[in-house]
């Protein structure tokens, strides 16, 4: 059995079926990210694992023991809350040592553990301060420190970076990843940001409407999405997804003409922009976004009376093209995804 296992976990809020039969096995030391749009149930699932929400159906297992009905205080899990949830009336040191004090751990041991955690997180200078006197980034580190000190079986992070400004977010992302490497602790991390998912995870769990869409390593999800939702959720800019009838030429190119009511997916970096005349899809440039290292070209395949389809192409060289220019688009061989009417992938990309 895996270290942390969910078997058929269910949750209802009144009439709403919020979590629909989740099965998941997490190995010891893994960094697993729950990602998905708002309302997909990722936070709820995390809280169910933490014991802050009751589990209505199914079972939860940790290190061989069933903990489905066990109180949060007894699960040996630590959670870093989105709002940090620091105890406002306690100093940083007391915040971090609270759990150990409750467990009546020897004072000298507590002191040593708090010191060590504070060093790792650069908090030694702030140990006697109260949360009110700290900045957002410092408070977040205290929240992490509170979890580290306990050396729990699993770390749970609930969107920890969403309250930080952009610069701090990037930096803290690195620190959390580094921390995981050093401590090797099993971690479940919830976020709505797919960049965090891609960069930090050993495995990513994509959730939608209370069910798992796909589980896999970040690159697995990127290269071989199981359905249209995952394909469009992972990757910036979003994958180009076009209905087969809308662009029969493209359907022909990728060999999907036989698929009725299907969709074709091509990532922007697999769309090549040729001068007009070359390339199998004639199009006109609508928008050019020059980001410096990358250039995004939005081109529309005018045709057949109706509006045509806009494809995004991405290249890492600058372009001389201008808005309105005629171009010819093409797709790299074996770089496309075909989805059926329900969105499931039909033909693998490679």
């Amino acid at each position, binding site marked *: 059995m895996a270290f942390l296992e969910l078997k058929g976990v269910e949750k209802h809020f009144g009439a709403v079926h919020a979590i629909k039969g989740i099965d998941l096995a997490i190995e010891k030391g893994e960094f697993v990210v729950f990602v998905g749009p708002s309302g997909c149930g990722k936070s709820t699932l995390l809280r169910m694992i*933490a*014991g*802050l929400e009751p589990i209505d159906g199914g079972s939860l297992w940790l290190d061989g023991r069933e903990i489905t009905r066990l*109180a*949060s*205080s*007894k699960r040996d*899990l*630590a*959670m870093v*809350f989105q*709002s940090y*949830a*620091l*105890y*406002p*009336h306690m100093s940083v040191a007391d915040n971090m040592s*609270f*759990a150990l004090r*409750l*467990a009546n751990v020897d004072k000298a041991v507590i002191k040593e553990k708090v010191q060590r955690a504070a060093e790792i997180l650069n908090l030694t200078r702030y140990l006697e301060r109260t949360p009110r006197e700290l900045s957002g980034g410092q408070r977040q580190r205290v929240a992490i420190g*509170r979890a580290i000190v*306990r050396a729990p079986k699993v770390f749970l992070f609930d969107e920890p970076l969403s309250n930080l400004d952009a610069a701090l977010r990037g930096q803290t992302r690195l620190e959390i990843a580094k921390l995981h490497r050093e401590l090797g602790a099993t971690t479940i991390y919830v976020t709505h940001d797919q960049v965090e998912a891609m960069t930090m995870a050993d495995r990513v769990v994509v959730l939608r409407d209370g069910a798992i869409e796909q589980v896999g390593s970040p690159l697995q999800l990127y290269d071989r999405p199981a359905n249209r939702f995952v394909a469009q959720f992972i990757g910036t800019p979003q994958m180009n997804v076009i209905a087969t009838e809308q662009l029969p030429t493209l359907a022909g190119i990728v060999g999907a003409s036989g698929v009725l009511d299907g969709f074709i997916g091509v990532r922007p970096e697999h769309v090549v922009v040729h001068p007009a005349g070359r390339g199998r899809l004639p199009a006109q440039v609508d928008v050019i976004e020059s980001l410096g290292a990358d250039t995004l070209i939005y081109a529309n395949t005018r045709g057949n009376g109706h509006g045509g389809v806009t494809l995004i192409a991405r290249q890492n060289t600058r372009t001389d093209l201008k808005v309105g220019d005629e171009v010819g688009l093409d797709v790299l061989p074996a770089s496309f995804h075909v989805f059926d009417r329900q969105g499931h992938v039909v033909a693998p990309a490679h």
Partner: protein
Amino acid sequence: MKHFGLIVRSAAAWVVTLLIVFPLIWLVLTAFKTEQQAIAVPPQLFFTPTLESFAEVNLRSDYLLHAGNSVVTSFLSTLLGLAIAAPAAYSMAFFRTKRTRDILMWMLSTKMMPAVGALVPVYVIAQTAGMLDTLTGLTFVFTLSNLPIMVWMLYSGFKDIPPDILEAARMDGANVWGEFLHVIRPLAMGTLASTGLLCLVLSWNEAFWSLNLSSAKAGTLATLIASYSSPEGLFWAKLSAASLMAIAPIVVIGWFSQKQLVQGLTFGAVK
């Protein structure tokens, strides 16, 4: 230009304030006068202050009694009120059910009935039970009067504790009692204090029930002051001294807790 506006505004604010507060200032001055100075025509702004009026008031055989009664009834009703209101507010804040809101509204509505509506029955009950002119009777009535407001204020204060801090405590291994002891109690101290202060103020100033349910034995300072309504001889300085001693502690308390007190009295309807 801006400076000029500031000066005008400041002057206006100060003048208006001093006008409004003037009666109190006059009270304070008169307390330190002799009776002759108190009724002097034209009124004296400058005089040598004396404590003789305070001394005379204190000599009154019933002054200490009434002062003691005020202290006892205020403090006891506050403690009793907290003992009853705090658990209820705690339950409503942390064990919320579908009926919690209705119950809270109902409790507030009991405060909205005019005291005079209950005067007759309460008087009759007090008379039958032999509780007229007793500290016990007064304390009970004060407690009941203030209970709705206390429940309300404590409830608001408890609700202000962020729920995720309690969850963090749970994750850290605290059981229900641990949550209360380590998180709720320290964070709710402020609310308990200001609610207690409010009850103290309301009970101390309580005049309706004091005047109707008590007289010589259990009367509070409110009734004592009322006895200066038309005594014989010169009494203004003594009245001022007695009033000053009676109102000073409460006014000072009011200075320090204005926001919370008014919050309590408007049932939180104004943010």
